[in-house]
């Protein structure tokens, strides 16, 4: 289990970010949630998005998986697709859909509320994408899924239904389901926010381990300790813009912006 596309495989690949997002804008009615978001994600890098609720961080993440369509801006994945949303709003809807699907093919999402398929067993949840969409032969998909489940300590649960698992186990299956798609980009949308506090650790450990293995990921989270340990870059979003960005050690200890400082204070010292 390691990223499918090692940096060394293509000369010069390291120079070009895996993902470039430029000028992403999105409004829901009158509510402008994204007001020009720019960032890059390099191969093997972990980018963590933090920010108050309503800051737009989840919308950014969902856009990377084609679950939201920005009104304007460009998403450029090295190797395709390159989507210019402003141009698409005017262009044929079919093409837009095709590019969104291409985007989805290269990324995989882990949801806050795991969204496992309740009518399928753990194993069936994991192989659904590979077998039904990617046309991986079932025997191979099962073998790979079993190996992944073993990695997160859930091999003996492969025939259980999601309702028979704890919240932490469900979320680990959610992660395995995403990994099984062999995406170039792993997306996590507040993967521990819906968990009981004592279950948060087991899920964060799995994500941190994936980061160490070199998976490229974008993580929306409120777990600052995790961000500090695992992130290569932290983006602080507020009001639909990136207010501040930097290495976690810098951003957490010496934030430059007042808004960042206030946000960190509220999270780190909620009682003050």
């Amino acid at each position: 289990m390691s990223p499918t596309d090692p940096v060394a495989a293509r000369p010069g690949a390291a120079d070009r970010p895996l993902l470039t997002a430029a000028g992403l804008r999105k409004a829901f009615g009158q509510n402008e949630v994204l007001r020009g978001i720019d960032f890059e994600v390099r191969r093997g890098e972990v980018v963590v998005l933090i920010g108050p609720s309503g800051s737009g961080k989840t919308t950014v993440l969902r856009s990377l998986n084609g679950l939201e369509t920005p009104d304007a801006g460009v998403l450029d994945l090295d190797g395709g697709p390159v989507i210019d949303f402003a141009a698409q709003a005017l262009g044929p809807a079919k093409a837009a859909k095709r590019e969104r699907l291409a985007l989805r093919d290269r990324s995989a999402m882990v949801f806050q509320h795991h969204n496992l398929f309740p009518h399928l067993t753990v194993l069936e949840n994991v192989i659904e994408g590979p077998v039904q969409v990617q046309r991986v032969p079932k025997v191979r998909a099962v073998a790979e899924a079993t190996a992944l489940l073993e990695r997160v300590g859930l091999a003996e649960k492969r025939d259980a239904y999601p309702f028979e698992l704890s919240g932490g186990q469900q979320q680990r299956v959610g992660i395995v389901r995403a990994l099984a798609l062999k995406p170039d980009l792993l997306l996590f949308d507040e993967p521990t926010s819906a968990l009981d506090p004592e279950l948060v650790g087991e899920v964060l450990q799995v994500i941190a381990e994936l980061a160490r293995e070199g998976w490229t990921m974008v993580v929306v989270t409120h777990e600052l300790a995790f961000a500090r340990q695992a992130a290569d870059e932290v983006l602080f979003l507020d009001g639909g813009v990136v207010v501040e960005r930097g290495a976690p050690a810098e951003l957490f200890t010496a934030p430059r912006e007042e808004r960042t400082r206030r946000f960190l204070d509220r999270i780190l010292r909620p009682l003050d």
Partner: protein
Amino acid sequence: MADGWQLFLDSFWPIVWGAVSGTIPLALASFAIGLVLALGVALMRLSRNRVVSGIARVYISIIRGTPLLVQLFVIFYGLPAIGVVIDPWPSAIAAFSLNVGGYAAEIIRAAILSVPKGQWEAGYTVGMSHAKTLRRIILPQAARVSVPPLSNSFISLVKDTSLASLILVTELFKVSQQIAAFSQEFMLLYLEAALVYWLICLALSSGQSALERRLDRYVAH
């Protein structure tokens, strides 16, 4: 009384045969066709295209707003007036299917809407198209929700097929009517018909429970 008992016994198997050769195949065929129709109408109703959902809405409204007996008579006695002559059996199946199509469409639509939006997104994120997500993720979950109301529809349909006796279909009730007319034992024969309907519905209810248990295997109790 002994005569009455004898008549009951003598007429029992003919009535059951009326159920086996008339009522049950009529109900099964109409329900099967009606469900396919209902799924189509439900999906139309959920369509974002106003014209498409409007057509479905009107169809459902007409089916629910007019008596089944009238629908049956329009097809069998009315259509010949404009040159469309349909035999009793196809007429009955058409009327009952259209009826199920209208009622079950609303059940299926509600069941589809009851599946959380996150399930659609999870389907998309593993790479499935809208149609595939519907088929593999949403409908199996909607099926579980819709079994109780659809069972009700089916049980109603079994009883409603007695209306087919009025357009010359030989089924359970028609057989009892014929024996009653011949023997003049109306009370006995109609109660006997009622008993056989009831037995069929009892069997259906236990079938429903078994199906619900099977579909409930993946939910917490």
